[in-house]
């Protein structure tokens, strides 16, 4: 039992934090969001630091890392509100590696040359993974995947679709699709992906691989949320110490003290569950144990996201509403994180059924 990062994990997290501090502060991020919504420089740096290779095996030049290895990175991303579609890349690449081991795309991913996205969401499905309307027939996909994170800049999609033998994942070239770009509530690039008899390569693994991939994503998201929660708590604490009313810092008011204490308690409880989620994503005994841990973590993290984000804005007063302060953007991110890959109700139902 230990909660240390090992040396490699620490080095990786430090590299990422250094890069973000230097080149991805709130102002830099604002410019990225106002422009194209992603940064080629960031993408290049991620590859250089080793992020793009981390989740893939050594066969492809990667490091074979798991969710635990990414905790520090995701926390840093959450704190900095990184908008680059890194998680979709990880998901698609991992699924591809598991479902088509020899794909030549994988070494391109490691080198930071290939951009992939993971297209599993559809309108009307809410958070159910098995409500898939997209059809696979004779290696061609037809249907529409919606709100696919990173779609506008993806060159390939890993897509969930229903074939004759059930739900599976398929690799599709972006050129065979039509992408309608959007921005999410938390300012990320997304898009609807229209498939009209798009040629596709079927991956092995079926619905189990889809579920495993989304559980892995949820574990990463929990760690990302912890970073965002930490920022929300810390910046609110700082505000309470500096903002004066009635001649004293507002942090001297006991009602506000008790409320920020409860925010930090939520943060610590969420952090614990994020640790559990990453740990079980990597090494659960079976799919049920993994799913229980992931859903439990998402429940607690989503509750914390709601509680902390709402309180952080409230305790900031008007300033919390202003888009000039980072906290309002963290609020948006936490609002989305609480729902992405399943909201509390979805995971309560899943947890109870397991």
């Amino acid at each position, binding site marked *: 039992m230990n909660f240390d990062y090992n040396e490699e994990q620490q080095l990786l997290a430090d590299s990422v934090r250094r890069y973000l501090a230097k080149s991805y502060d709130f102002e830099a991020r604002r410019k990225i969001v106002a422009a194209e919504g992603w940064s080629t420089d960031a993408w290049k740096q991620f590859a250089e630091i080793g992020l793009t290779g981390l989740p893939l095996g050594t066969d492809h030049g990667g490091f074979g890392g798991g969710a635990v290895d990414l905790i520090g990175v995701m926390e840093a991303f959450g704190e900095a509100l990184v908008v680059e579609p890194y998680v979709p890349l990880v998901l698609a690449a991992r699924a591809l590696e598991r479902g088509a081991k020899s794909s030549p795309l994988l070494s391109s991913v490691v080198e930071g040359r290939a951009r992939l996205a993971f297209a599993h969401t559809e309108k009307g499905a809410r958070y159910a993974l098995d409500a898939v309307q997209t059809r696979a027939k004779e290696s061609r996909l037809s249907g529409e995947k919606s709100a696919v994170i990173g779609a506008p800049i993806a060159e390939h999609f890993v897509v969930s679709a229903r074939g004759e033998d059930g739900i599976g994942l398929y690799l599709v070239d972006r050129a065979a699709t039509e992408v309608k770009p959007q921005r999410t*509530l938390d300012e990320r690039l997304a898009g609807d992906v229209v498939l009209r008899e798009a040629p596709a390569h079927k991956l092995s693994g079926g619905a189990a691989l889809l579920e495993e991939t989304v559980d892995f994503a949820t574990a990463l998201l929990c760690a990302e949320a912890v970073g965002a929660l930490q920022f929300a708590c810390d910046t609110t604490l700082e505000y309470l110490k500096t903002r004066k009313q*009635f001649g004293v810092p507002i942090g001297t008011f006991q009602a506000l003290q008790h409320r920020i204490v409860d925010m930090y308690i939520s943060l610590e409880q969420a952090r614990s569950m994020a640790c559990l989620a990453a740990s079980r994503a990597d090494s659960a005994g079976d799919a049920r144990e993994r799913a229980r841990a992931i859903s439990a973590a998402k429940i607690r993290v989503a509750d914390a996201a709601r509680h902390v984000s709402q309180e952080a804005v*409230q305790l900031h007063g008007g300033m919390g509403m202003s888009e000039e302060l980072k906290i309002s953007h963290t609020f948006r991110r936490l*609002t989305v994180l609480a*729902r992405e890959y399943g909201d509390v109700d979805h995971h309560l139902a899943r947890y109870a059924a397991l």
Partner: protein
Amino acid sequence: MDLNYSAEELEFRDEVRAWLGANLPAELREEVESYAHLSKDDLLRWHRILAKKGWVAPAWPREWGGTGWNVVQRYLFEEELGYAGSPPLIPFGLSMCGPVLLRFGSDAQKKRFLPRIYNGEDFWCQGYSEPGSGSDLASLKTSAVRKGDHYVVNGQKIWTTLAHYADWIFCLVRSDSGTSKRQEGISFLLIDMRTPGITVRPLILMDGAHEVNEVFFDDVKVPAENLVFEEGKGWTVAKYLLGYERMNTGRIGESKRQLAYLKRYGEHLMGDTRWRDRLSRLEVELTALEITNLRFLDRMRRTGQPPGADVSMLKIKGTEIQQELTELMMDATDPAASDPLSVAVRKRYLSMRKTTIYAGSNEIQRNIIAKSTLGL
């Protein structure tokens, strides 16, 4: 005890409802219902329709255009406005500057300003908050120095709602910085927004909307005749306004409309126990608040006393309900949808977080109840 409205009250409500049905322009209602941005023209258009009918300022004395309705009628009227999906009546002129002038203004000020407020010729905004003075309003620093027949105003206001639409701003300013009690050096000034030296800078909120502003005053000359009441008595004016009877603090009618809409919007989730229970509890809370509001009105009607700290409770509960409504709406939205309504619903969740902060944060409202109702 009778929780039902009397026949007369129902008749009044039906009259209002029928008139709104016939006179609220469909395009305005649709904009409101789809959470669209309302332009200055939209707001003024509706204001002027009501003014023409004689219903834009029910609480004013009859001689200035008031309706003579009792508190229950005024409540019913505001509830119907909200329930019908009418654009908001911006309160700064009608419910704030107007009542202040009626109570404290000179005859000349009344004659000059009240008809223009009533008819929607002047658009007003409110200059209270400053960067260092939010909850602690009495710490405000914007200065007004008397020079001959003018005041010279310097300083900054913040969170000034719709200042970018406004023709006039009423301000609390510090006219004497040497008083021992901070409240004593404050005056209430009316300032023409076109006066040289005024700069309005947008403050974009987290939903991306431009509603509020910073307003900078740089040697702004304000005629002394625009002082309301006496110099140094601005705090008295501000306190009067805080206690002014507002029937609509809980926004019951508006929330009832949102709730009815939510039931249609979230119909696909009505069989989901988790979502349904949140909706049920919300409906119960709103029902309770409506009755609580009626109880307060009934007491006002019987005793003739102003509502006091009751208003704080309506503010707290009313805004909590409004926020919960927007959160349920967001959770009913298809997470994969990006159509305009879905996007508007999500942004509305962001936007409505302001309701527990503005107009005296809910923390300040709790302080008020603790102090004035509970004697703590």
